[in-house]
Every structure is written in structure tokens, then in C-alpha cells.
């Protein structure tokens, strides 16, 4: 941004981020000078840090401001790249796999060969033009188009009729609220989608026992699609690629579908309704997941007993990571509540009461949160300042006691409750977002005008 204003700029980066910087440089098409700090400053002594700045970093910063950049800007179009829909390879199944692996166009599992015929079958399930573009997606600066959704949907093993859901997912991820530009950050978060509405049953999504296990085609392939799209179209690749700086990372998360029948029987709103949609309306909600709780087993026949168990477990599991959300005033825990558990709770408590209880009772000592903050990024968290600027509610600056309990969740309505899972077992599970990165974002699923006809055709196959 600054360089485009005509002001020479140099960026400070750790040596582990040089490849990511190169991806960004190519994606933006803007030359970028960098000064490299060898290693990570968070683990160096003061003396080591001073020596590295003096010997390595500072001279490179001076050079970056004073010497002409050798690296030319990226061309307006990569003319050497294939056109949309161009055949790039012909071969048998194994040869296609090898080629896609070599090109870094695969997630490591076999892909379904994206032939024109297969891609065309996906495009039949949308009334949008194949050339419609949602965003110039970071970090590689490529068009996130309807066509690219179809190709990667094929590769991920989706069925053509999933296409409206895939489009809504990409549209949500391209919303500025989602912060797609942060999808390659070191925590290695994954996008998770919640599918709502009548399309759950039409696509045969699992919302019962084993809901988050790979095995049902719709849940699994839609989850796989999200990671593949981030990798192929956005450019978030692990070595030997670059762009994805997830230090350890995690596997893709299968799509979650809500047990809307159970929610309705309980008198609870569905998650889709909580996100602003009508009951039964088809929608997707995507958010980041950086941490998954162990199974939350809870027992008893009172609402308090179960919600207290959620509180006791989640306030320990999420204790470490919540500081980064608190620092930005926003993060979104999501709890899959087993239908049997939800039944007990709903006899006494509304969804709002559950959220309010968790918000009031999930706390962490302020000193421990500051400690976690320092351990991660060598920085602190100033609650008074965050309250003063309106990022946090007054509650966070109510006391100067360093060990005072700090609410782990900023607002009750940041909590998502989804009824799903095994109706015959007392188990739930919690999911933690990575602060504002991958913020919870919803989109309506738009069906093609011929949906009934197309769906009938798919059912007859």
C-alpha cells in the first residue's frame, strides 16, 4: 500500500517467511524490499536480538530503502499460464495423479480427473456465468471464479449437485469479513462449514452419529473442497510450495450439517436461523477452526449440569488460544451439542440462556492470559486500552487485580450452538476460531432455476 503511494518501503520479516513474501510479491504484482531477521525474535536473548539487528536486519533495511530493487514487477497477466478451460494434460489415471502432484495441484490424495465434461456437469447446477469472479484471491492474486469452483469441486470428489453449496462457501470465504488473506497464518487454522436448510437432506449430508467423521460423500468431499480451493486457487501451499505458513497445521474438516429436526422438536432455533436465515432456508456458514475440544461427555437430567460441564471443559481447552480473540474483541466458539444433551437442556433453558451462562462463567485469570499472549507473539494485552477504544466491554477493566477472572468470550452471541451428532450418546464437542481470522461468515445457497429437474435426474442415477 505504501509503496503504491510512491514511498519507498522495506518490510521486516523473519527468515522463515521469505518464501511467503515472494508469493505475496508475485500476487500483488508490486515489488517489495525486505530486511530479513534470521530465525524468530521470540526465542532470542536481548543480546542475540541486538546482534542480529545490527549485523543482518538493519543493513538490509537500509539497502531496501536506498538501492534500486532488482526484482521486476510481475507482468499484468501471466501469459505463459493456461487459459480457463484449457486442456493441460492427457494421460491415464495414474499419470494424471502424478502430474497434479508435481504441479502442486493436489492435496496429496488422489484427485478426480477434472475433464471438461465433468466440469460442465457442475456448471449446470448454477445459473451464474462460469466467468463470474468473487475476488482476486490472496496471496497469489488469482481470480476466484465460478469455473475454478467447478474444477476443484470435481477434483475433491464432490457430486455436481453440491455446486450451489460450493459456490456459497467460496462466496463466504471471499467476503472481507472472513479475512481470506490470513488463511496461511502460522496457527494453521482450517475453514469449517455448517450447512443449513432443506438441502441437508437433498444432498444426503450426515447430521447424526459420526457427523464429523470422514465417510459420507457430501460431508467429506465438501470439507476436502475447502482446503483444495485454498491451496489451488488462493495459493496456500505447504512445502515444497509456499504461501501456507501453518507451522504444524491440521487436516481438512468435513462439512457439518445440523440436525434441524431435533432442533425444531426442542423448540430451539436452528443455527441457520441464529445466523439470520429463515427456518429451512439453505445457507452455509464458514468459520475458522484452530482448536477442537475432546468429546464433551456430560451427564444428569438438569440443564445446569450439562452446561456447567461445557463450561468446565471448554474454559480449560480454550484457555490458551482465546487471548488472541480477546485482543481483537472477537472470536467465535462453536459447540456441537448432541441431540440427547440438547433435549435435556432445552427442557429448562433457551439457547440464549446457555450462551449467557457460558459467557458469564468461562473465565481465565488476567495474568495467565497475558502470559499466553507473551509466549505466542512477545507482546502484551492492555485491557484498559481495549475497553477505552471500544474493542472490549467495560467488564474487562473492572478491576486492577492481576489475577482477576477475565471473560473468555466477548459477547454471548459470539457463541454458536449446533445440534448434531449421536442422539443416543451424551456427547458434544467444541470448536474454537482463530480470533478474527476466518471470522464466521454466512451466505445463502442459491439454487439454479432447474433445481427440481436436476435433482430428480441425480436421484434417478
Amino acid at each position, binding site marked *: *500500500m*505504501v509503496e503504491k503511494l510512491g*514511498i*519507498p*518501503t522495506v*518490510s*521486516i*520479516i*523473519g527468515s522463515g517467511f521469505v518464501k*511467503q513474501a515472494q508469493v505475496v510479491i508475485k500476487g*500483488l*504484482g*508490486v*515489488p517489495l524490499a525486505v530486511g530479513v*531477521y534470521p530465525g524468530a*525474535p*521470540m526465542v532470542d536473548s536481548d543480546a542475540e*536480538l541486538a546482534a542480529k*539487528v545490527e549485523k543482518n*536486519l*538493519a543493513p538490509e*533495511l*537500509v539497502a531496501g*530503502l*536506498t538501492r534500486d*530493487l532488482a526484482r521486476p*514487477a*510481475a507482468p*499484468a*497477466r*501471466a501469459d505463459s499460464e493456461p*487459459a*480457463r*478451460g*484449457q486442456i493441460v*494434460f*492427457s*494421460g*491415464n*489415471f*495414474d499419470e*494424471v495423479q502424478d*502430474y*497434479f502432484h508435481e504441479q502442486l*495441484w493436489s492435496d496429496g490424495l488422489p484427485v478426480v*480427473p477434472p*475433464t471438461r465434461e465433468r466440469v460442465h456437469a457442475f456448471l449446470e447446477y448454477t445459473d451464474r456465468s462460469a466467468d463470474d469472479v468473487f475476488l482476486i484471491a490472496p496471496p497469489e492474486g*488469482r*481470480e*476466484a*471464479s465460478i469455473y*475454478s469452483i467447478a474444477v476443484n469441486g470435481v477434483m475433491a470428489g464432490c457430486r455436481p449437485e453440491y455446486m450451489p453449496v460450493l459456490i456459497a462457501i467460496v462466496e463466504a470465504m471471499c467476503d472481507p469479513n472472513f479475512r481470506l488473506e490470513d488463511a496461511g497464518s502460522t496457527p494453521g487454522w482450517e475453514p469449517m462449514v455448517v450447512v443449513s436448510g432443506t438441502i441437508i437432506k437433498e444432498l444426503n449430508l450426515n447430521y447424526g452419529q459420526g457427523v464429523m467423521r470422514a465417510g459420507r460423500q457430501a460431508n467429506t468431499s465438501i470439507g476436502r473442497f475447502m482446503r483444495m480451493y485454498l491451496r*489451488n*486457487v488462493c495459493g496456500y501451499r505447504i512445502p515444497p510450495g509456499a504461501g501456507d505458513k501453518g507451522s504444524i497445521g491440521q487436516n481438512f474438516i468435513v462439512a457439518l450439517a445440523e440436525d434441524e429436526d431435533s432442533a425444531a422438536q426442542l423448540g430451539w432455533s436452528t443455527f441457520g436461523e441464529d445466523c439470520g436465515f429463515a427456518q429451512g432456508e439453505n445457507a452455509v456458514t464458514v468459520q475458522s477452526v484452530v482448536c477442537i475440544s475432546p468429546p464433551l461427555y456430560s451427564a444428569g437430567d438438569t440443564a445446569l449440569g450439562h452446561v456447567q460441564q461445557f463450561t468446565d471443559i471448554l474454559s480449560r481447552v480454550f484457555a490458551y488460544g482465546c487471548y488472541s480473540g480477546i485482543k*481483537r*474483541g472477537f472470536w467465535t466458539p462453536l459447540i456441537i451439542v448432541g441431540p440427547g444433551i440438547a433435549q435435556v437442556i432445552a427442557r429448562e433453558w433457551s439457547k440464549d440462556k446457555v450462551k449467557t451462562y457460558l459467557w458469564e462463567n468461562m473465565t481465565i485469570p488476567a495474568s495467565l492470559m497475558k502470559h499466553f499472549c507473551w509466549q505466542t*507473539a512477545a*507482546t502484551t494485552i492492555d485491557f484498559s486500552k481495549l475497553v477505552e*477504544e471500544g*474493542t472490549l466491554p467495560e467488564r474487562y477493566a473492572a478491576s486492577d487485580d492481576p489475577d482477576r477472572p477475565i471473560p473468555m468470550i466477548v459477547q454471548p452471541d459470539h457463541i454458536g450452538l449446533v445440534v448434531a451428532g449421536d442422539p443416543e450418546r451424551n456427547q458434544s464437542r467444541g470448536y474454537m476460531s482463530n480470533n478474527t481470522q476466518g471470522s464466521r461468515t454466512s451466505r445463502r445457497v442459491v439454487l439454479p432455476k432447474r433445481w427440481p429437474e436436476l435433482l430428480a435426474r441425480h436421484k434417478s442415477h
Partner: protein
Amino acid sequence: MSNSPLEPHYDVVWPLGRKAATGAVAAPRVADLNGKVICELWDEIFRGESIYPLVRKHITERYPGAKFIPHTEFGDFFGPRDRAVLATIPDKLRAHRVDAAIVGIGA
């Protein structure tokens, strides 16, 4: 791996999207930092409170006439109000008549 001639062949399409970058030219560099205004932009992580003063010292020793605008003038561009902070930076750069910028820290 099977090489049977009976096995079907697949003509496969490109799975990526078109690159849309519009190439840009780097801003002219500043040969001599003496008398120039250098701004510091910091995301308030990864020990910038220690690194920036050391960088400032290094530059000042070589370019005694360099003037620095500290990061506090611009705010945390990675914090809760990051987009609002970023939106104000161009005007602040102009107001301070900034000649060069150091941005960090990505680690």
C-alpha cells in the same frame, strides 16, 4: 502403476484461476537518508519495541540527519481496528511528509 492400453485416458483442465495482478513499478529509492523522514509502521508483535530502536540507532549512525516518525503516530495495523488504522495511514504519511517507510514485523 497401470499402463494398460485399455485404461481410459483423461484430458484434464487447468485447476487454477487467472492471475489478475497489475504490475507496478517500485517507488524510487532514496540514495541518501540524510534529511529524509522515515516512518515506522508496526503491528505490535514480535519484539518491535526492541527492534525498531536498534534499527533507528543503526540508521542514525550512518545518516545523522534522518528523522523518524514512530509507530505510535500510526497505530497498530494488525490490531482490532486494523482496517480503520490502515485507512488513515496515507493521510498521515502525507501529513508527516514521509520519504521512506519501514513496515513490520512478519515472523
